[in-house]
């Protein structure tokens, strides 16, 4: 028994080893190194990197661009998450029901998921172009003046949010569709026999039963709102005047355009802290509140 157990130890660790080496090299080590670097200054040719304590974090607190971008990220999250989840539920209910041309509709909803963000941003760029763009061509028919959607700080973030919702909703739909297919059909029949309206059935029966899925999708959506920045490279480069920049994009800029790795590491620590908060939130909420409130 004892020998068998120790053999199991060895095999267990040996099988895990290759993956563990990769995870240590490209996830754990860089996480720790990032944390360490945030306490050092950026070395230059004349002045080598040295320990500066919390100095990087102090400049972070005084960095107006950082605060602007942090706020943008909050707006981006609040703008994308509820609408894409609501649309995803709506899509799933439609596609799961008795809709004519169901399979074509389902395909249309899902297609954005498999297209690269970079490629679709090229197409959306045309939609947003002033005068000749599709939005301006259509709105002109209704008497609206042409508008520089991506050039105006007031509308640019909304444009970024729109393309993200379009990209995400169909992906989230899949999870709702899978969940809906596990609901017993008798439930719906019984509700209607009792005279419940469709909206009542949705609100009191379906939505609570979909809660675990909603939680799973919600976590993914929150992570995405810190991860999905590809479209910025094509559409706005974070501009005008950082009005559409997001945290991960700013990290990229600071590290690879401004070549300040120390500050980029400090910004990464903020992003890691946000992700840690999400992880803790997931842990706390996962067991409670999932079923039937």
């Amino acid at each position, binding site marked *: 028994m004892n020998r068998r157990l120790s053999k*199991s*130890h060895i095999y*267990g*660790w040996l*099988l*895990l080893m*290759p*993956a563990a080496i990769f*995870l240590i090299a*490209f*996830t754990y*080590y*860089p*996480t720790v*190194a*990032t944390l360490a*670097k945030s306490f050092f200054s950026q070395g230059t040719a004349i002045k080598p990197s040295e320990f500066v304590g919390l100095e990087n974090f102090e400049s972070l607190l005084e960095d107006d661009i950082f605060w602007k971008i942090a706020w943008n990220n909050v707006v981006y999250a609040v703008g994308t998450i509820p609408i894409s989840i609501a649309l995803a539920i709506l899509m799933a209910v439609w596609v799961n029901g008795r*809709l004519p041309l169901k399979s*074509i*509709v389902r*395909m*249309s*909803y*899902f*297609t*954005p*998921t*498999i297209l*690269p*963000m*970079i*490629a679709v941003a*090229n*197409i959306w*760029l*045309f*939609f947003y172009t002033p005068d000749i*763009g*599709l939005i301006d*061509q259509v709105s002109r028919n209704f008497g609206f003046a042409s508008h520089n959607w991506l050039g105006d700080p007031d509308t640019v973030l909304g444009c970024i949010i729109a393309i993200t919702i*379009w990209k995400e909703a*169909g992906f989230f739909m*899949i*999870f709702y569709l*899978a969940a809906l297919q596990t609901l017993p059909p008798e439930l719906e*029949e019984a509700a209607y026999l009792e005279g419940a309206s469709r909206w009542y059935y949705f609100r009191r029966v379906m939505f609570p039963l979909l809660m675990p899925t909603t939680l799973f999708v919600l976590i993914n959506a929150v992570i995405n709102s*810190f*991860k999905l*920045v*590809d479209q910025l*490279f*094509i559409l706005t480069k974070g501009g005008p005047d950082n009005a559409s920049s997001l945290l*991960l994009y700013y*990290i*990229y800029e600071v*590290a690879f355009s401004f070549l300040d*790795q120390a500050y980029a590491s400090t910004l*990464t620590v903020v992003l890691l802290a946000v*992700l840690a908060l999400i*992880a803790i939130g997931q842990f706390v909420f996962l067991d409670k509140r999932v079923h039937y409130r």
Partner: protein
Amino acid sequence: MSGMNRNTGLSFHLETAAAWLLAFLWMLPLIYAFWSAFHPPEYATKFDLFAPLSLENFRVAWDQAPFARYFLNTFMLVTVILIAQFILCTLAAYSFARFDFPGKSIAFALVLLQLMIMPEVLIVENYVTMSKLNLVDTITGVGLPYMASAFGIFLLRQTFKTIPKELEDAARVEGCSTLQTLWKVYVPLARSTYVAYGLVSVSYHWNNFLWPLVITNSVNTRPLTVGLAIFGAPESGVDWSVITAGTLLAVAPLLVAFLLFQRQFVQSFMHAGIK
């Protein structure tokens, strides 16, 4: 019975119309891309039903950027990542599913951490690592951070756990070693999980952009997404029709595969999401 009035009432027709309208809106970018790519440039922003069709934009796009090379790079990249992921994740998943060792639950929790801290977040530090390893601007360098995937380990572990232990015992009685048992019993029985994970992985890495942008800087390593971003940049002075043609070229293989195996794709994403 109750289905009857739900299928004929006004609200049913309204809902159908709304669902179709949303589907049309969702397809609109792609519909526009096809319009613009298959018509001469003067029709890129002018919608005329009788506009002449043309393949000229595709020829121009193909000549203006090394798309053939980009295709090759992306193809090599997704292949290398997929093979490495299958091997690393299979071994680790088998360990978590069927072996007992001290520290197993902590190790598993650490693995799951990567679901939160994805390689995208660590671009700054991983770039430093790659330059130390002399792997900047190589396809290996693009692939390395993704090879041990927490998602793959988790997915395969769940599948392996559902396989009856008796099958493993039977293989052992017949004299199979640990790796032989894994190869002959577990891997074949987890086929549908491999297909699902493979499709998700290939579409993710076909579309991935930020890390490849950071780590590549030459035509010989750049994947399609990075090539496309350079090709479509306003500085390059290429017109709309050619950009949309290039865009369609880049997405074509994945899009065609998706249209052919739609059910498989949708089920894979479902399968991967439910766990």
